[in-house]
């Protein structure tokens, strides 16, 4: 009988402890991250250029560098990130439930995802669009010739929906074969289960590198959708939202101001007031974000500016060789634009 009473008391105590903790997890993400000592970042399970671990377990990619930038802004150390690889199907649940602090996993910013999933997109770190990849020997020049094709796709993506729209609009038939994991979908395409593979154009180029014979495959010219990819956070914590958003803006501003990973220390002596404000030599713009004065300096010092991150991961200095295009600065013909730090 004593044991029974003890169990009762223990259960009640546990309940009393657990519930307030749950109720609080909606806000103060920054404090929790500082307390933990590291940032938890949701990434792709393996997409070259965006989020991919090497054989030593080091993550690289455009999305990965954004998380490293956030960690650098908070801790001054880009290595204080724990990466959690997530499939497209599980990613939003992981963010909603608080398992991760930020989702930087080439996720498309859509109305319903913000209005219905309780998420907010902090910005667009890659402007993309959906395309198709097919085998060269099929002799297809356009996506409009895909009627009747079997198409492999990753489940739970905007890609799956756009594909349905595209084929409906053009009154063509198709068979979509949906896989939970991107690697399974690519493998199925490579083995011949599907005639085409569809995802965001950047993803097509990245996946092509993984195929047995990349040269036997070609990406079709049609881009059938707008895919603004960027990091997402939970709703209800404006400070955290601002922090992630301004990490992204800091990287763009750095490129615009000519501040690079290599010259950031020199730039501390710059006479340009914009650079001075940006690097925290003048004023204290980190305070409102809950960060130190040198927040932007720490970001650039750790990962470089947006242009450097782009070139290193997906652009000229990477195996993907994707052109800047829409992702160039607004002043150079693209649409990457960041509000000023002042």
């Amino acid at each position: 009988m004593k044991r029974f009473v003890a169990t009762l008391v223990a259960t009640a105590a546990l309940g009393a402890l657990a519930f307030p903790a749950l109720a609080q997890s909606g806000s103060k993400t920054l404090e929790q991250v500082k307390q933990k000592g590291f940032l938890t970042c949701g990434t792709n399970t393996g997409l070259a250029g965006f989020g991919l671990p090497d054989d030593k377990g080091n993550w690289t990619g455009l999305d990965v560098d954004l998380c490293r930038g956030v960690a650098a802004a908070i801790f001054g150390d880009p290595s204080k990130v724990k990466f959690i690889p997530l499939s497209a199907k599980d990613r939003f649940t992981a963010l909603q439930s608080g398992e991760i602090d930020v989702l930087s996993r080439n996720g498309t910013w859509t109305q319903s995802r913000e209005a219905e999933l309780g998420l907010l997109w902090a910005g667009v770190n890659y402007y993309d669009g959906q395309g198709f990849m097919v085998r060269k020997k099929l002799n297809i020049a356009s996506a409009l010739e895909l009627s009747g094709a079997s198409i492999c796709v990753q489940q739970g993506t905007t890609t799956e929906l756009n594909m349905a729209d595209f084929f409906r609009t053009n009154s063509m038939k198709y068979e979509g074969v949906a896989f939970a994991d991107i690697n399974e979908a690519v493998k199925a395409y490579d083995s011949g289960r599907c005639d085409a593979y569809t995802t965001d154009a950047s993803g097509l180029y990245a996946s092509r590198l993984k195929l047995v014979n990349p040269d036997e495959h070609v990406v079709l010219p049609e881009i059938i959708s707008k895919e603004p990819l960027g990091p997402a956070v939970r709703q209800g914590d404006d400070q955290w939202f601002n922090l992630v958003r301004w990490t992204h803006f800091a990287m763009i501003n750095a490129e615009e101001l000519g501040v690079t990973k290599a010259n950031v220390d020199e730039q501390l002596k710059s006479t340009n007031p914009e650079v001075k404000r940006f690097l925290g030599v003048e004023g204290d713009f980190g305070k409102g974000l809950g960060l130190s004065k040198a927040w932007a300096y720490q970001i650039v010092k750790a990962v470089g500016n947006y242009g450097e991150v782009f070139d290193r991961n997906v652009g000229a200095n990477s195996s993907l060789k994707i052109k800047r295009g829409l992702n160039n600065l607004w002043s150079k013909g693209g649409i990457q634009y960041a509000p000023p730090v002042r």
Partner: protein
Amino acid sequence: MRRRRGGISMTDAQASAKPSISPLYDPRVRAFVYQAALLLVLGFLVYEAVVNASMNMRARGIPTDFSFWNRVSGFDVNQTLIDYSAVSTYGKAFWVGLLNTLLVGAIGVVLTTFVGFAVGIARLSPNFVVAKLATFYVEILRNTPLLLQLLFWYNAVLKPLPNPRDSISLGAGIFVNNRGLILPDPQWGPGADWVMWSLVIGCGLALVFRAVARKRQADTGQILPVGLVSLLLIVGLPLIVFFAMGRPLGFEIPVLRGFNFAGGVRVLPEFVALLLGLVLYTAAFIAEIVRAGILSVSKGQTEAAYALGLTHGQTLKLVVIPQAMRVIIPPLTNQYLNLIKNSSLAVFIGYPDLVQVFAGTVLNQTGAAVQVIAITMAVYLVISLVTSFFMNIYNRRKALVER
């Protein structure tokens, strides 16, 4: 512990019939109070959890209702047993997934029973090679993970099949390629109804004949050829009608057009891989259950049957199996439930079952994680309970024979 003590003291109290005990020391009152307190605490915990979760969800803008059910889904599914397209609702997508799960479950349960019984009996075969082969089968399949077997069937066996242009033709308009098994689509012409009805009548007549034969055997000991007559009635009768009506059946032969065959019926390789994996894996367990069941029938029964002059087949069918069934059925039910629940592994090989379509895409698209997972769990619970309900009825009927 608690209950036992309460029980003992209760009988004590009744036996000695002591008149007045303070309610504080009355074991019955105490037991009631403790149970009520436990129930209250449990209820409170559940209530708190629900309220807390929905409050937090609402605070973060996550939907807490089921209004998504009637919204347009916007995605397609490549195997649908009911009419479904991207303009259908999420609710309809649920039914599509559920039916796909039930399809693989129903066919799987039937096939695995046959394979399991065959292998189980083979393990006891006096033929050395057959017995060893069956043992080999059971030990290999039972001792490797099911997911691995599914991936093996899908990636190693089905995907290396040729592409549609180099399809393997099996004749009669049947083709095999890496898009699946393509069969001719039967097109019933006028008069096909009569063939269907003759099949129904044939089955009915066969049942009647069986009853007559049973009575005859009970009365006179004469054995009528039930199997042969039933075969004639069930297969022969519809065949005669079929030819009499001028063969009212055409086939739409699949033709290679563009990327794949047009026309015909296509069985997805994902479906075949899932079915193969589930059936062969579960059959290994059923084989062991069958073997155990047969071995549980004492040898004296077999010897007595031989002494009465029954053949080996008759002994198995009339004496051993009916008694073995009593041991076999309860664990067999477990295996059926396992097969149905394991079918959710379909998500790894791209077969659009309930988990893939509903708990996968619908959940992701709507963000209603709690509701979708709750519905999915409820569905598996209902399927399992219904299956065990029917198996229990069957079990009771079999168990009644015991004296």
